[in-house]
């Protein structure tokens, strides 16, 4: 505290106060109407799904981006954070998820690098580092070589770096992703000590159990805005999960079963390995019939993305088989799979779904380069593609001034509508839809649901992956839960609740009841997820 | 947008016009009073290669000083096609340069075309005799004859009966040096051991400009037991001389008399040089052209007309062999010895 350059009034206003923060980017969900109050001397967690807007918020707080609207108040003083340097001056420091340390330098050198003016680079700096380390129990030895240190130690050096620069408000961005459980415990010990010494910690995460164990206050962000602030004592992981994925959204109803008997897509014991030989998809078997939507629920990173890439031929399959309408397509290339009638709405549309710097009509061609109306023989049929793009724009209500604008210029929802329209073209047999409504506004979301429903009614088989449990429950005819690359349970979407599903996703039971089908209203709510 | 573009275009045109207008009063220096202006077009590398092109430039300097003529030299680029060479020669012809000298066989095709287009301009080409035009003089050299004498000198001076040769680039020109050298050495001592090394192969011409590799090549030969090394390697030859000094062994220079350009501490190791008087050839051609006596066809510079030869500057070393070498020289001039041009 003694280091803090900014004067600290003892009246103790909130350390950080955000009001009405709004940030717009062309085409993506950013932040709007963010309201957060972080009390001094607390650990304040900000949780939300990937893509909910946490990182933008963090960048705004750290001066890397400026909000379009709203105010930021630090220690009771309204501030304009124009750069990280400005943020540091205000006492805000950031510990990045990926460490920014030079391996071949010592701890001391890493800490003083870029902050040589504060205490020089010699004995004074060393004394200061030792002092800080002792004060906050970080146990950092200034003369160790960085490459000798483990991950936990490195993270403490990062924290020390920030403290050394005079920060009294620390932002930790997903700090536990790189740590093993024991290291997580140590980190939490450090955070409690920091808190006791009067520092403020803003802790960004999507791991609910960690947040519950370390935070004093939790703010949940969904779809770019704050949806609630709770005390850990008054909440459970399930309630938090419901807040995160949106329990109160209108349910995308879909009840009457139209599923036929014909299995359009069958996975048999599909396995896929990561480059280091770990199974990331581990023996997945499932059937999707014509007119059926099969949902996969799971915490992100449990093999959903890899499962889809394996089906689409983008990732080698280690063992098992994929059958499309009874035809084995296991060894087919992506193009052949797509030509055979598999539509694909990728999880990350910017990486896998669009050519951002190309006009709409060229994006209509993408993924369907060999099919009519986009191609004629070896040539691109520009006229046909343009006409069909116009059709999609009209039918799917893509809001655009024309089909010649770069798709970059459209909002995320309109981009997604074009993708959905594209993938529904040409009467596909199977649609692989990953997060089809992520990052799109509410209007576009229900439009996309309508289109999915209509296609299902026509006999389309859909594999749906989503982080939005309401979407999954509302849209799916069958619901599987995936955990560490395995299908660990099957739930009946007619009866399951988001809370039950959230619990199953973390591996805490439910399956026996839900898989049976009949409504298990209140299964054991006892223990939290691991 | 189109408006912006047209404005920009208009701006560019105005700039261009202004640039043209600005130059109107500039004028050029000298010339114009009927005095001859001499043009010289280099091969790749141009001035500063310490070899061929530089020798030509020395001739040009001599022209400027002694004949008091305006001179101009233009260099070539590696990536140019014949079109550029033609354009270069045409430019000089159009600008009133006469005579015009092209250095190097690369100009062979271009000079033939341009000489035909400008029959009133006198042209010369160094190191090429592929063309036969009334206003084109081919200046060629009997490098093998000078090298023969260098080889003989090496064979006379060696104590180990083991000598070496370092060529810059293994092309036909340098092979002429090698052929003459070997013939000369074997003429003195048929059993002599001769090590041959080339620094690079065409089309890699860096062998003429890489002293470090020249030194390495010569060092190898000295290590193998040679005690005289002859180099025909342009600027790389400086490395050969360095190796000779380091090993306190003898070296033979090339093109110009390298004893005269060497440092005093290097001089004791320079036995002689096989001299090729490109500068003299250039100077004499210009003189002839100015006097109106230049003729088409080939002018061969050899021992007989002292266009090539060996240097006698290092009297201490070469003195004792001079008599023998002069005798050989006469035999070559008289045609009693025929020197091969290919190894």
């Amino acid at each position, binding site marked *: 505290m003694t280091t803090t350059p900014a004067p600290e009034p003892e009246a103790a206003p909130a350390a950080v106060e955000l009001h009405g923060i709004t940030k717009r980017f062309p085409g993506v969900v950013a932040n709007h109407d963010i309201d957060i109050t972080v009390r001094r001397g607390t650990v304040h967690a900000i949780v939300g799904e990937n893509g909910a807007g946490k990182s933008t918020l963090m960048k705004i707080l750290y001066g890397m981006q400026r909000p379009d609207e709203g105010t930021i108040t630090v220690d009771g003083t309204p501030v304009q954070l124009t750069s990280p340097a400005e943020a540091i001056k205000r006492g805000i420091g950031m510990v990045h998820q990926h460490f920014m340390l030079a391996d071949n330098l010592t701890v001391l050198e890493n800490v003083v690098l870029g902050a040589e003016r504060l205490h020089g680079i010699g004995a004074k700096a060393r004394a200061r580092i030792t002092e800080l380390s002792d004060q906050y129990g970080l146990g950092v030895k200034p003369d160790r070589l960085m490459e000798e240190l483990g991950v936990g130690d490195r993270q403490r050096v990062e924290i020390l770096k920030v403290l050394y620069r005079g920060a009294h408000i620390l932002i930790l961005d997903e700090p536990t992703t790189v740590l093993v459980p024991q290291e997580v415990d140590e980190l939490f010990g450090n955070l409690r000590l920091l808190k006791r010494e009067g520092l403020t910690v803003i802790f960004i995460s999507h791991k609910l159990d960690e947040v519950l164990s370390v935070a004093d206050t939790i703010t949940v962000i969904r779809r770019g805005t704050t949806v609630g602030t709770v005390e850990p004592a008054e909440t459970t992981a399930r309630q938090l999960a419901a807040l995160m994925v949106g329990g109160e959204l209108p349910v995308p109803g879909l009840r009457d079963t139209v599923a036929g008997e014909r299995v359009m897509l069958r996975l048999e014991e599909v396995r896929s390995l990561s480059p280091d030989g770990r199974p990331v998809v581990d023996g997945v078997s499932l059937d999707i019939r014509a007119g059926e939507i099969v949902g996969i629920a799971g915490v992100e990173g449990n093999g959903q993305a890899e499962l889809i890439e394996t089906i689409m031929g983008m990732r080698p399959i280690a063992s098992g088989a994929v059958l499309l309408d009874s035809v084995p397509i296991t060894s087919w290339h992506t193009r052949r799979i797509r030509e055979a009638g598999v539509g694909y709405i990728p999880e990350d549309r910017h990486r896998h779904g669009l050519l951002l710097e190309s006009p709409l009509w060229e994006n209509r061609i993408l993924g369907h380069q060999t099919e009519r109306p986009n191609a004629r023989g070896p040539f691109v049929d520009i006229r046909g593609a343009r006409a069909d793009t116009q059709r999609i724009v009209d039918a799917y209500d893509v809001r655009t001034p024309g089909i010649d604008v770069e798709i970059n210029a459209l909002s995320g929802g309109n981009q997604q509508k074009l993708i959905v329209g594209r993938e529904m073209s040409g009467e596909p047999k199977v649609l692989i839809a990953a997060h089809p409504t992520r990052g799109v506004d509410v209007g576009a979301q229900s439009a996309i649901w309508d289109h999915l429903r209509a296609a299902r009614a026509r006999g389309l088989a859909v594999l749906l992956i989503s982080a939005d449990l309401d979407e999954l429950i509302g849209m799916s005819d069958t619901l599987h839960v995936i955990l560490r690359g395995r299908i660990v349970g099957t739930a009946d979407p007619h009866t399951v609740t988001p809370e039950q599903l959230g619990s199953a996703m973390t591996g805490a039971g439910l399956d026996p009841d839900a898989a049976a089908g009949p409504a298990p209203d209140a299964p054991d709510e006892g223990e939290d997820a691991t | *947008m189109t408006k912006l573009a047209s404005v920009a275009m208009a701006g560019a045109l105005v700039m261009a016009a202004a640039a043209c207008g600005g130059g109107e009063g500039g004028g050029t220096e000298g010339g114009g009073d009927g005095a001859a202006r001499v043009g010289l077009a280099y091969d790749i590398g141009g001035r500063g290669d310490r070899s061929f092109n530089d020798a030509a430039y020395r001739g040009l300097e001599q022209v400027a000083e002694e004949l008091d003529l305006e001179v101009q030299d233009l260099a070539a680029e590696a990536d140019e*096609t014949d079109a550029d060479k033609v354009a270069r020669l045409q430019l000089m012809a159009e600008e009133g340069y006469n005579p015009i000298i092209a250095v190097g066989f690369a100009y062979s095709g271009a000079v033939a075309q341009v000489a035909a287009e400008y029959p009133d301009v006198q042209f010369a080409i160094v190191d090429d005799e592929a063309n036969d035009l009334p206003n084109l003089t081919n200046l060629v050299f009997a490098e093998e004859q000078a090298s023969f004498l260098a080889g003989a000198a090496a064979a006379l001076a060696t104590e180990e009966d083991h000598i070496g040769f370092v060529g810059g680039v*293994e*092309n036909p020109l340098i092979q002429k040096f090698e052929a003459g050298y070997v013939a000369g050495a074997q003429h003195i001592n048929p059993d002599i051991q001769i090590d041959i090394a080339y620094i690079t192969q065409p*089309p890699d011409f860096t062998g003429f400009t890489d002293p470090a590799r020249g030194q390495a090549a010569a060092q190898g030969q000295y290590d193998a037991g040679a005690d005289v090394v002859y180099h025909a390697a342009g600027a790389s030859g400086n490395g050969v001389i360095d190796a000779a000094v380091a090993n306190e062994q003898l070296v033979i220079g090339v093109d110009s008399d390298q004893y005269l350009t060497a440092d005093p501490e290097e001089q004791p190791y320079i036995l002689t040089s096989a001299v090729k008087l490109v500068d003299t050839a250039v100077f004499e051609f210009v003189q002839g052209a100015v006097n109106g006596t230049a003729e088409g066809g080939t002018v061969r510079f050899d021992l007989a007309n002292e266009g090539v030869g060996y240097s006698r500057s290092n009297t201490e070393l070469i003195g004792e062999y001079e008599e023998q070498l002069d005798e050989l020289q006469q035999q070559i001039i008289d045609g009693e010895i025929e020197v091969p041009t290919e190894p």
Partner: protein
Amino acid sequence: MNDRLSPRVRDRLSSLGLLAAALAASAVIAGAITSAVLLATGVDPGYAFAEMFSYGFRPNSVVAIINQGTTYYIAAIAVAIGFKMKLFNIGVDGQYRLAALLGAAVGGAWVLPPVIHQVVIILVAVMVGGFWAGIAGYLKVARGISEVISTIMLNSIATGITAYLLTEDRLAVQVQGSNNIGTRPIAESGWVPGIPAGFLGANNEIYGLVLLAAAVGVGYWLLVNRTRYGFDLRATGQSATAAAASGVEVKRMVVYSMVISGMVAGLIGMPQLLGASHHYALDFPVGLGFTGIAIALLGRNHPVGIVFAALLWAFLEQSSLALTIHDIPREIVVITQAAIVLTVVVVYEVVHRIGRRMQQQRVGAQLGTAEVA
């Protein structure tokens, strides 16, 4: 129809306008830099430019510019094919040299009827260029070796192979009356006659293969903009991940693109070989592949843009001759060339961003605030 086309035309025009503005701006900047250097060396820039212009537009100069530009154009197209896919084919240089050598050797060894003779030579060159570039493509996909590294190495190897083959025991003969050695001269049936340029008032001839360059340009445009293959190529260049997800086999595309780039590279030496020298000798031009990189950058990989870039480049080199005549260092032109390339790259990027922002504003204005909820 009209409603649909007009925005398209308008977009086209606006992007062309921005491109022209970028070029004009960079010309002004490069001119200013050159002028500053000239002034610093004590030369009146107006005088220097005037000399360059007056010489550069003489009829014979124009012909020389067209001839040089022809070669540059093909070189730049070869590079641009790689660029379209974010492949840096630095090996164009080695590819065309090897292609020209072997093409010349085959052309000199056989005497064939006209047309067939030329076609055979060109085909050999195309195949050799494609093969040589394909090695780099294969190494990239099979072994993960950056094409930048492998093509640089392959350039050196090409030099070595040329040295090996261009000796009298193998492909070469001594050129009559010269210290030069080259492949056996191609019989007249294999020459491509020049186009008389009397209409320009010049007595030099334009390389007949200027038509080949034009065909290469048209073919390049067709390939990139009108074929499925070209779409895959551009998609891969824009986003390899999106291309892969769309079904493009990126590895195969890498190999194909390198091969096609090398095949075009094989043509680079043809105007000189079939139109002027008729043999591959020690004085065959080298380094054209590197010039092609700069010109492709300058022309923004666009078939028409590269025409202007190649002619501009050739003009600068040609007109720089006028500078040396007046004792102004010719290297000044190198500064101009470098400045133009740099400023074009920078200015184009700036203009591109402005254009995108304008488009986004237009979209926003047209759709109201239909942004994120």
